[in-house]
């Protein structure tokens, strides 16, 4: 069996198997008369491994045999397949973020002064982890409290060119007319034609 015929068979078997496949198991894919030599097998596996250059998976040999596995470089993306969606952010977090955005640089104490309640450490931590806010300095007063500001990630996320493109306070007071295209998803009533439309796809048959 030529390498060109051998490779697709091995690749398919390795990708179809849930477990790593040993050389012995790979040999069992072939009937006696077509069974490749050890050298051919090794050569084909080497070629398959080389084919993985620049791809999302790699062919590796582990204790029990060979397997394709997801490359470390793209692993972070792949794990999002099983990501849990967190709950919506709390009002407190959004208010804190808004104050930092509009009043930066601002200390935690100043945020608390405006909001009238203590800002939890968790909120600041979440905002920092999301890379939306960061410490930009310290106020030169006793205790040297941290001054918070927003980041470029924050601007990117909200589609803002710079801080000046944040709506003005006056515009905020009149939010209803502001940015009609940024409709906040309210509980929109389901259109009548959708509610009783069954999910059934129509039959493909052409009736006569």
């Amino acid at each position, binding site marked *: 069996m030529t390498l060109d015929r051998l490779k697709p068979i091995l690749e398919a078997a390795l990708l179809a198997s849930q477990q*790593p496949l040993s050389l012995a198991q790979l040999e069992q894919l072939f009937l006696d008369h077509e069974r490749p030599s050890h050298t051919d097998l090794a050569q084909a596996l080497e070629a398959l491994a080389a084919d993985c250059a620049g791809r999302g998976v790699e062919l590796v040999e582990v204790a029990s045999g060979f397997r394709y*596995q*997801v490359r470390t470089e793209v692993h972070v993306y792949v794990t999002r397949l099983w*990501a849990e969606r967190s709950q919506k952010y709390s009002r407190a977090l959004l208010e804190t*973020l*808004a104050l930092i955005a509009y009043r930066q640089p601002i200390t935690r104490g100043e945020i608390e002064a405006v909001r009238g309640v203590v800002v939890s450490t968790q909120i600041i931590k979440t905002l920092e982890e999301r890379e939306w806010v960061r410490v930009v300095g310290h106020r030169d007063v006793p205790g040297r409290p941290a001054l918070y500001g927003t980041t470029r990630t924050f601007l990117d996320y909200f589609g803002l060119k710079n801080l000046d493109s944040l709506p003005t306070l006056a515009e905020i007071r009149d939010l209803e007319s502001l*940015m009609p295209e940024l409709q906040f998803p309210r509980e929109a009533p389901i259109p009548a034609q959708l509610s009783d439309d069954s999910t059934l796809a129509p039959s493909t048959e052409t009736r006569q």
Partner: protein
Amino acid sequence: MANELHADAAQARQSEIPFAVVRGQPFYELPKDLYIPPDALEVILDAFEGPLDLLLYLIRRQNLDILDIPIAAITRQYIGYIELMQTLKLELAAEYLVMAAILAEIKSRLLLPRPPEATDEEADPRAELIRRLQEYERFKKAAEDIDALPRIERDTSVAGAYVPERKTTLVPPAVDLRELLLAFRDVLNRADLFTTHQVRREVLSVRQKMTELLAMLPAGEFREFTSLIATGEGRLGVVVSFLAILELGKAGMIEIVQERPLAPVYVRSRVAMEEADDLGPIETDS
């Protein structure tokens, strides 16, 4: 008729795969007199999906003229069938029985002379059978087509790769800019309410500052005005210190002196230390 059928079946055998396997034995031909022959019952049940399927087979492969079915033979087989029904699957056999009855009915109606007027309303008894055969054949073919589709397990397998350290991550929730602005509007509205609060808090700190100022002013001694202003507490501290000095002046507890315009301002206490402890009567405009 029966012999013809047998001959046809025998002829067809050469080029055909067995159409049925009963207890391991391949059957290349249909048993004689196969409409519903008792001998062939197992063959029928194994190989055909019902009377329509059987009829289709007979019509297509055996060139059987279903309009020429000998009624005497059918009736005989019909009775034999009823006897066998006691041992075999009743509901399956019943369908063949019904078909036999339909065939017999078709034949008998065709033999009867037709009243010239009634023909239009009375549909040809064969038409319904033909329609059913046609309809069944379409889906028989459709089933074969579906069976021919490459499917998982038989023709393909889903390809998968191993994922090292498969752990769930937490995806942060999405936030709409509008949502953020609404939050800010709310906080601004609430801050408006807090403003009155803050005035009262400042009154207290002004009173406290007045106490502190008096403590800093030994009786009769002048101090420069600017040295009394607390700079370590930011803008608020400056404002509070300034207000406190004005309040003390208004209450006549201190004397504020400036020798000429733009010259330094000096402050001197006009109360004794013991009096300074009692600031009760002092009221600020609230």
